[in-house]
């Protein structure tokens, strides 16, 4: 809301400069970002809170100024003018829907001379960004900005039947509004109609057909109060936002209707001539019941810690327009002014007193300590997880919770599995994700498009699963990783090798170890989105499957136009975090030396490392302490169906030093049985 400093000064006689007003008004809740100095005036850009439509006017702002400066409001002095004729004999006003229009006042002025506005009026409107149209239109606009009451002037001769009907539009009715657009009306739209058709969108904009023109001589001045919700609905539906609708939407002052109209008529008589009717047609079915609110004096201090004298409380409230109804030792009762719809209860009065006493006068202190702080369960483990993945080269990603169908189809997620948004804002992004992978895949594509080919990302986030209709969707925490490109070193350009399955697996294994949770289990599996033979299911120690990982299938990779292998992992983080911590228990250090023997087996390439280890451990070989991997080899000199696996076996006894010969014998036995079991050859 733009406020003219000079205008404000006429209404408040303020002694403050524009810059001082900016600071003082900001501190009572009318935030002012900018003061623009013009030739003969300054303009304050006031950010009016949504509960204070009364401040969408110069008088409203001036009232706040007078409370700040302890002065009195100087409302414009009424001037007398000649009148003639009885309005009721000339026109009729009917309100068909008093719910949507609680008050409608009409006054007729005959013999008006439409013409340009005087210089002062043009300039005053110009300062606050309003374009001059003609004297009558300018005067209605002027009164709106002065008193906050939207007004409308009809060309009386253009009204069929010389009458006003406030009603809902009928299906199929249309209206060409002043901005030149043809508007389709619905039965939800409140209109001002004449005997035949709508002539204005109530509280929003007039119609072109009844607009004031140079030929106009008789003018009907409308001053009304419309239901806020109705105006808001219509304005939203039609995408309109006008000076009038902005005020009605937030709530105008229905007791200001006649006063504003009187002011308007008086200015028209002065500047455009004409003879108004003696009386006003005032249809007022929705009379406002004055509200009274009780203020317990002690509550001001209880809630704000401010010590304010009851006399000062009364001064502030009275200056703001509250009328004292009764007064006791412990409480004060006030009638709320008609322009303050926002004040309903004691706390609202306390706010009025506090803001005009000054929030800066409120002490600043911590509440007495009474509780101990606490992180969310799992937060510390998540912090470890994040940092562990960071140290393995994974950057943390955050994607929107709503995603398009692209990606989810490929991942085999059905449309019904994900909650659907009724009103997405990003075209197509209407599904609440049930997997983090689609987001990471598009993040990867975004990186490729920007020339980043070596990418490691992880995301921790909420995923959603639709339940039966009408039930809240399930929400849980998920972890996903994606990796592609070279295993780069920091500050060095060339990677020694490409990232693969085991980089992803190793990162998660270490993270889980650092979180002090039991090791995850990886089992070869088939998954639609993963490449056959390079995919694993991920399970908890308990055996419960919580996710999968592997190389992204070519079908998906091609759909995203990826030209290099991509590895992905996703697991249910909620389930992982819920698993029991590993209990660390010390083992005594060995007292006797161990003997190690390596063994290389040429085995079928589908025989897993885990199978071989499990087999060895199952044999209860004497003094066998540990089996570890030395390496695997496949390729040249080895049949395509085979691979070589080299294990290091450690033998140790707890109570004595082993002799070479006995280990030799045990190991030879183990070797020959392994060769037999796995149909292997020794290399």
């Amino acid at each position, binding site marked *: 809301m733009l406020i003219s400093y000079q205008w404000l000064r006429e209404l408040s006689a303020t002694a403050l400069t524009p810059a001082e007003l900016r600071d003082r008004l900001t501190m009572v809740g009318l935030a002012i970002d900018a003061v623009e100095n013009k030739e003969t005036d300054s303009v304050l850009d006031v950010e009016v809170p949504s509960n204070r439509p009364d401040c969408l006017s110069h008088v409203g702002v001036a009232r706040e100024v007078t409370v700040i400066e302890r002065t009195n409001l100087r409302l414009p002095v009424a001037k007398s003018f000649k009148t003639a004729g009885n309005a009721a004999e000339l026109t009729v006003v009917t309100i068909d829907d008093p719910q949507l229009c609680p008050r409608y006042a009409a006054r007729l002025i005959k013999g008006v001379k439409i013409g340009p506005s005087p210089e002062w009026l043009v300039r005053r409107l110009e300062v606050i960004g309003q374009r001059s149209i003609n004297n009558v239109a300018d005067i209605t606009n002027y009164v709106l900005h002065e008193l906050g009451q939207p007004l409308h002037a009809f060309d009386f001769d253009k009204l069929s039947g010389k009458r006003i009907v406030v009603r809902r539009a009928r299906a199929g009715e249309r209206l060409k509004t002043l901005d030149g657009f043809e508007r389709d009306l619905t039965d939800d739209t409140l209109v001002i109609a004449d005997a035949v058709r709508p002539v204005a969108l109530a509280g929003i904009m007039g119609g072109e057909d009844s607009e004031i023109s140079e030929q106009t001589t008789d003018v009907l001045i409308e001053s009304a109060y419309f239901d806020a919700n109705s105006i808001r609905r219509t304005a939203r539906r039609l995408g309109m936002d006008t000076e009038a609708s902005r005020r009605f939407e937030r709530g105008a002052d229905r007791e200001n209707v006649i006063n504003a109209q009187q002011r308007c008529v008086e200015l028209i008589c002065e500047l455009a001539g004409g003879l108004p009717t003696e009386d006003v047609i005032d249809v007022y079915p929705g009379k406002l019941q004055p509200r009274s609110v009780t203020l317990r004096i002690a509550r001001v201090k209880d809630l704000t810690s401010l010590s304010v004298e009851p006399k000062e409380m009364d001064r502030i409230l009275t200056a703001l327009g509250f009328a004292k109804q009764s007064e006791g030792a412990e409480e004060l009762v006030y009638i709320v002014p008609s322009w303050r719809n926002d004040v309903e209860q004691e706390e609202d009065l306390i706010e009025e007193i506090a803001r005009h006493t000054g929030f800066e006068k409120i002490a600043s202190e911590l509440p007495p300590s009474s509780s101990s702080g606490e992180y969310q369960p799992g937060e510390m483990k998540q912090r470890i997880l994040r940092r562990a993945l960071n140290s393995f080269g994974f950057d943390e990603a955050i994607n929107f919770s709503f995603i398009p169908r692209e990606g989810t189809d490929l991942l085999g997620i059905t449309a019904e599995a994900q909650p659907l948004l009724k009103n997405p804002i990003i075209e197509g992004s209407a599904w609440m994700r049930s997997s983090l992978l689609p987001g990471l895949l598009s993040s990867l594509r975004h990186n490729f498009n920007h020339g980043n080919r070596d990418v490691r*990302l992880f995301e921790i986030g909420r995923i959603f699963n639709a339940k039966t209709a009408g039930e809240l969707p399930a929400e849980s925490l998920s972890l996903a990783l994606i990796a592609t490109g070279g295993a780069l070193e920091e500050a060095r350009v060339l990677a020694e090798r490409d990232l693969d399955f085991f980089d992803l697996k190793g990162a998660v294994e270490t993270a889980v170890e650092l979180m002090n949770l039991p090791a995850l289990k990886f089992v070869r599996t088939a998954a639609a989105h993963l490449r056959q033979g390079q995919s694993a299911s991920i399970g908890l120690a308990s055996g419960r499957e919580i996710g999968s990982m592997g190389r992204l299938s070519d079908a998906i990779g091609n759909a995203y136009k990826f030209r290099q292998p991509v590895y992905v992992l996703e697991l249910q983080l909620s389930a992982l975090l819920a698993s029991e911590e590993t209990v660390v228990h010390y083992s005594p250090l060995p007292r006797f030396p161990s003997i190690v023997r390596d063994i290389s087996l040429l085995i079928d390439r589908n025989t897993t490392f885990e199978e071989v280890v499990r087999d060895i451990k199952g044999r209860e070989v004497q003094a066998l302490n540990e089996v570890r991997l030395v390496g695997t080899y496949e390729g040249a000199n080895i049949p395509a169906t085979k691979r070589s696996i080299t294990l290091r076996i450690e033998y140790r006894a707890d109570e004595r030093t082993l002799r070479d010969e006995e280990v030799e014998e045990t190991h030879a036995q183990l070797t020959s049985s392994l060769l037999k079991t796995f149909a292997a050859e020794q290399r």
Partner: protein
Amino acid sequence: MSGIEKDLNPTEQVELAHKAFEQEFERFVRLTDYQVVLTAALTLEEALAQQRALAEVRTRHLGKKSALAAARKLIGKVAADERPAFGQLVQQIEASITSLIEQAERNLAELIELNRTALESIDVTLPGRRPRRGHAHPITLVRERIEDIFVALGYVIEDDREIETDFYNFAALNIPDNHPARGSQDTFYTTDGFALRSQTSTVQIHAMQRRGVPVRMIAPGRVFRRDTPDPTHNPMFYQVEGLCVDRGITMAHLKGTVAEFLRRMFGPDTVTRFRPSYFPFTEPSAEFDFSCFKCKGSGCRICKNSGWIELGGSGMVHPNVLRAVGVDPQIYSGFAFGLGIDRMCALMYGLDDIRLLFENEVRFLKQFS
């Protein structure tokens, strides 16, 4: 050494050996002067060859089979009274030879070491050897810092659902039925009519229901509003809401808590300012600004020359909100506040386009620790 001349007396023999040494040592003499050695610019190979040659000279002239050793054995042939003088002479010559060779050896060794270290020197400014590391998201960094501060102030951290019922997202927060925020223009709805939470105040309601009062909590989390993405808006962002309900809580406690938080976040000199404002869920309501951390209040680009940075909203919990969770506003009072984590990120890191926060480009992400 063969060179014992039978017809020479022992002293002459000794002198002859000395002379022979001096003759052979001639080519090493320059090695006895370190400055000369340094300027000789011998390569490592040459120096090593010299070292070997010198070792041979040592053996030839000081070894068991050297002329000097042979001459020493002739002491029996020296007249008894001349023996001391002879002994002295031999010792003297031996010492002089040893000293010369050692000097040369020492200088050579030093030169070799110098050569070697030069060859083995490394460029210590090359990057250290480490795998590429990843980076925490700036939102995570700011959120964790906020959590740490409030845990230290005795607050519990809470979170709850992101898809919410009308009760938690609006009704319990005193947002009336016709409030614009409820419209599908501003708030996302699922086809089932549930709302994506538009503020984490929803968590306050859950937490008060779960924990009862008194309560001190903050709720950091994801919220959703139907804004078209632009440099200062995203349809999803992070927010932190705080709540403190107890007997005797006043606005002074609100001011003190927010001011303390901002001092810990932006430095001990940070000044906080409260301005009256309006929110449906608080009464009285206040917005808070803090003195610009960059210019300290004198005015700069970050604070748009005002010296103040707008940060969040706050106020005393509206009695209707307390009633919604069965708390008697005549007994308990409380304050609540909320601020945007994304906005804090933008301020702290000088971000001019917050859409970057959710694009996950590695060139962006790697700028944060």
